[in-house]
């Protein structure tokens, strides 16, 4: 599938990595090894420490303790040479608003000491790839959010990086743009670029990631393949019923092997045998319910809890 093999050393290797802001531990003693090749996900609720972790990988933030190797080099000491081989799509676009689309790519290439003439045709290919070729001479302020994000991705590729780091690449974008970005990222992955992304969208992680960790409050809670985590942590099916817990209990008292969870007005029934429940529910007219396969979101919520994370 791609040029890397199992024997490749990890592209990122973090040992007991911590980041402290004053008294606050934003990243708390994490151990992480990201394999070379494929797509690795960093999932977690708001404030989990995903961006802080990525910033350390890029030398934009220096760890308070622990050791970090990226592309086999020591961070933050070898920041310059590491950044030469990495592409970055930041959580908030920081395109250069003083320039047009094509100028953004040219100027960014100059920061890598790349000569624009040498990569002119490659830059044209990048514009085609992110479907911005008709926007070459448009100013950044005239681009939509989706166009800006696509340009950020093209910009991150000007130095043909070995590792592409994406911090919430599709947050706030419409479904068409998300699908376009997903398919481009899949192509990159297949051509041998290692992807490292953070996301809140479980669908995104399930579609793209070969391996992921779930973070919360600065710690890594779990690691695994999306499907494996789903089968390990939740039952195969989820039935969401809009009713009270008492009502659900009495409706389904004959059915065994159900795990219930109440969230707001909805009872979540986790089960490996959905048909029995459905049979019961179908007898109740006027009840609203939904049957779906369990997904990563269920794993995520069962691991990180359902309360608002930034409320504390």
């Amino acid at each position, binding site marked *: 599938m791609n040029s890397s093999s199992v024997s490749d050393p990890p592209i990122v290797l973090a040992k007991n990595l911590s980041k402290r*802001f004053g008294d606050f531990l934003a990243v708390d003693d994490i151990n992480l090894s990201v394999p070379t090749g494929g797509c690795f996900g960093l999932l977690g609720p708001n404030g989990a420490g995903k961006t802080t972790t990525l910033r350390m990988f*890029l*030398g*934009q*933030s*220096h760890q308070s303790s622990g050791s970090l190797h990226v592309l086999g080099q020591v961070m933050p000491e070898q*920041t*310059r*040479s590491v*950044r*030469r081989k*990495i592409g*970055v799509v*930041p959580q*908030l676009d*920081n*395109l*250069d*608003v*003083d*320039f047009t689309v094509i*100028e953004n790519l040219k*100027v*960014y290439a*100059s*920061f*890598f*000491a790349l000569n624009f003439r040498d990569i002119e045709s490659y830059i044209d290919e990048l514009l085609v790839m992110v479907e911005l070729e008709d926007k070459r001479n448009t100013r950044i302020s005239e681009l939509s959010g989706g166009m800006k994000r696509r340009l950020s991705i093209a910009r*991150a590729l000007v*130095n043909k990086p070995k590792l592409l780091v994406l911090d919430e690449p599709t947050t706030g974008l419409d479904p068409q743009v998300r699908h376009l970005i997903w398919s481009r990222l899949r192509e990159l992955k297949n051509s041998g670029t290692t992807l490292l992304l953070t996301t809140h969208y479980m669908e995104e992680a399930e579609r793209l990631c070969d391996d992921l960790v779930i973070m919360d409050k600065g710690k890594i809670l779990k690691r695994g393949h999306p499907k494996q985590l789903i089968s390990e942590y939740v039952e195969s099916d989820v039935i969401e019923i809009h009713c009270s817990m008492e009502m659900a209990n009495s409706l389904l008292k004959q059915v065994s092997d159900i795990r219930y969870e109440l969230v707001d007005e909805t009872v979540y029934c986790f089960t490996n045998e959905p048909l029995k429940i459905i049979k019961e529910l179908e007898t109740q007219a006027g009840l609203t319910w939904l049957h779906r396969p369990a997904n990563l979101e269920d794993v995520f919520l069962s691991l990180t809890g359902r309360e608002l994370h930034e409320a504390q």
Partner: protein
Amino acid sequence: MDWCLPKVRMSMFAVWSRNFRVWRKLILPSTLFNFGEPFIYLLGLGLGLGSFIGEMDGVPYLTFLPSGLLASSVMNTATYEGLFSVYTRMVPQQTYEGMLATPLEVDDIVAGEMLWCATKGLMSSSAILVVGFLIGALQDWQAIFCLPFFFLIGLCFAGPAIVVSSLAPSYDYFNYYVTLLLTPMFIFCGVFYPVRTLPDFIEPFIQVLPLSHAIALVRPLASGQPLHNVLLHVCVLAAFAGIGFYLAVVLVRRRLIN
């Protein structure tokens, strides 16, 4: 805080040329500004005041004034670039955040910005020089030797301005620097009259300010008089530039790498 000594590398020119590219797009309005302002100042003040004042310090006022403005214009241009433009790129536009995803480091960014501030200072004073010759206020061709000093003066004021930007929570905080340091230098350091005319006890304070040293180099060169203590003045300006660069790098690192 990261007190490591900054490294000076070729990559600083990438930052300089990014700014140059932006400037090139606005070349017409900025050229009009660079030439129009001194034209009005020199003609209006030089001729108007000059006809009352006649000579000052042995030089016609029409020559005395521009030879001071040459130095203060570098100061103002480099300072405003180091305050407003640098702050804009550092905070609201996040331009540096983008650069810090590339091999550029804070050292390169600050060095490139200082070069750019000095370049803009050099451009504005060169325009005054040209206008001065055109209207006959300046006549001695040794004035051309001011050019390298303009650049040095620009570096001398760029460093402290970037230090202020790196500490400022918002644009409004620049008022402290401008009102407490920049404007007093403009008025007291000898742009409009010789420092000697001020009360004696003030003079030592004036002598430590960099604009005094800038004027001590530029005025004699521009008005065709002999230069004194060149090494001293150059060293003071270079010290401000060097220490300003070091502090600016340390403080911008603190602000951006956290």
